[in-house]
């Protein structure tokens, strides 16, 4: 019924037969078993239909993938459901009023929204030039041997837990700001109105600096990847025109990578907006809008971290969940923009694939 297997051995491979009885005279021997695999297994093996096992496996991994969607869906759903009370009472005023009074059950999240934006933008202002400089240094200037170690150091900076940044902020950065940084800024830049008032150390400025340090790694590593993706010819073309090294970086690298760099910056912004512990520990946690960066403030995330476990009334809890919903919505939009920017240049592949 089936073709039978009898594998030949080349005539000139003489020693094989002597060494192993099973290959003895394989060439033409008709007395050997033609198939080594038992017939019973062979029939099972050649007819077993694997459609069921294939379907099961496929279903399993699809369920895993669905779980990702279900989790995101549940997060959105729970945030809306649990903040229902507060949404019904305050409506859009929740976003535009500044009174946050748990005792009177009157909640307006504007100070936290303001604090979130100011601290994050401050972080961007400080972090972007430094990150881009570092990314340029790693990709374009430093010797090959240093590249790996520098990238590892940047990765280690990203690996430091938020709570340790906060600890360091309280006991190292804030005192340093109080005694050195704030007096300096008040003396020379006090006229801007941004640097005046009592010098606590902790406050919006400390939060901005800590956030800046925390988003350095992500902006650096993603910019580095998009810079590496800029084709070599672009650089060579600029060099051939007699450009200086700096001009090559500016014209060939930065200009060609700008969409991706913009995506990296937006992604860093998303991180800064959602960052919780370190900010909670150094921002001062006061729901007020102040012009001076020395003043204490609040962010959406730190408000939740601070008050959630102490909130006793349903309205207070509900208002805090609504704060979470606002935070969720903002980061969703910001991250969607960033992903879109990065996807548009890497065509859906993770940015690091193109390196």
């Amino acid at each position: 019924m089936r073709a039978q297997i009898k594998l030949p051995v080349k005539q000139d491979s003489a020693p094989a037969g002597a060494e192993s009885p099973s290959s003895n005279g394989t060439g033409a021997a008709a007395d050997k078993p033609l198939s080594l695999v038992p017939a019973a297994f062979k029939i099972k093996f050649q007819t077993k239909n694997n459609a069921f096992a294939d379907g099961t496996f496929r279903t399993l991994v699809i369920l895993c993938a669905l779980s990702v969607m279900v989790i995101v869906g549940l997060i959105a759903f729970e945030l809306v459901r649990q903040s229902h009370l507060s949404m019904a009472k305050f409506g859009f005023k929740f976003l535009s009023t500044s009174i946050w009074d748990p005792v009177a059950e009157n909640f307006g999240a504007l100070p936290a929204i303001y604090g979130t934006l100011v601290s994050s933008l401050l972080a961007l202002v400080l972090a972007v030039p430094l990150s881009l400089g570092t990314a340029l240094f790693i990709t374009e200037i430093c010797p090959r041997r240093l590249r790996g170690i520098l990238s590892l150091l940047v990765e280690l900076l990203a690996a430091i837990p938020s709570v340790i940044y906060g600890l360091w902020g309280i006991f190292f950065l804030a005192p340093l700001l109080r005694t050195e940084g704030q007096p300096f800024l008040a003396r020379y830049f006090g006229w801007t109105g941004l640097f005046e008032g009592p010098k606590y150390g902790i406050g919006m400025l400390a939060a901005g600096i800590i956030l800046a340090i925390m988003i350095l790694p992500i902006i650096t590593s993603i910019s580095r990847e998009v810079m590496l993706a800029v084709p070599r010819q672009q650089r060579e073309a600029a060099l051939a025109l007699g450009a200086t090294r700096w001009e090559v970086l500016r014209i060939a690298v930065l200009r060609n990578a700008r969409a991706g760099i913009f995506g990296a910056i937006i992604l860093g912004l998303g991180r800064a907006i959602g960052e919780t512990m370190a900010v909670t520990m150094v921002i001062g946690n006061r729901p007020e809008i102040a012009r001076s960066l020395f003043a204490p403030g609040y962010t959406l995330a730190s408000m939740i971290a601070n008050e959630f476990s102490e909130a006793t009334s349903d309205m207070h809890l509900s208002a805090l969940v609504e704060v979470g919903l606002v935070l969720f919505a903002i980061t969703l939009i910001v991250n969607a923009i960033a992903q879109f920017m990065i996807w548009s240049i890497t065509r859906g592949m993770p940015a690091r694939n193109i390196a």
Partner: protein
Amino acid sequence: MHNISFRRRFVNFLGIGAIVGATLVVLMPLFLIMGTVIYRGIGSITWAFFTRIPQPVGETGGGMANAIVGTAMIMGVAALIGIPLGVGSGIYLAEYGRNASGNIVRFTADVLNGIPSIVIGITVYALVVLIQHHFSLLAGGIALGIMMIPTVCRTTEEVLLMVPQSVREAALGLGIPQWRTTLSVVVPSAASGIITSIMLACARVAGETAPLLFTAFGNQFWNLKLNQPTAALPLQIFAYAISPYEEWHRMAWAGALVLILSIMATVILVRFATSRGMLKGAH
């Protein structure tokens, strides 16, 4: 040959100088933070730190044994959730998801990656703590497990796609069914990359505090039960850091030292193994 003007040379000098300067400034916090943590923490690392539980205010000599064990147990639960779901969805994306529905999953995973950890904390509070009626180790583990999924998923996809298509064809051509091909041929070929991504995800999540605030909650005593509030290293560091007591601040630094060293050791180990070819890199 070229007569580059003085102005251009000067700008070039300034620009390159700024780039080098920026790099030095970026590296400074790493060394400052590491230095401070080691300097302030090392003195309080004693045998008791690893074997005793916290002492009440005013008494000296307590430790963080319960928090260390708590973190280990929370990580265990997180791994049980995050690894299968992350690897499974990564397999889906690489092997079945080269299409529109795959892109939706990809986008959703990136969204999940960007959701602030505190928001995940609130959600798990609403879904688990409210239903169980108390804070619990389980809830903490679920929160961290959710945070692991997107990283593991996307890197798993990435390393699976690096396995050449010809390897899949070889297996299919032998009459090995698709699921076996994936599990026994493709995944093992990418195993080192998957392990890398899992270890990095664990390292990232182990230091998270915000999602534990209203889930694991913290505990001054031992807890080994899944349905009870439990101590965790980052939570304990936070509680001690914002306390007014000198002695507790010392404990916070010691805790920070232990936490940071274990996380960095993991990252460095993984990277070292990657560069030696023992693990294939996720990057």
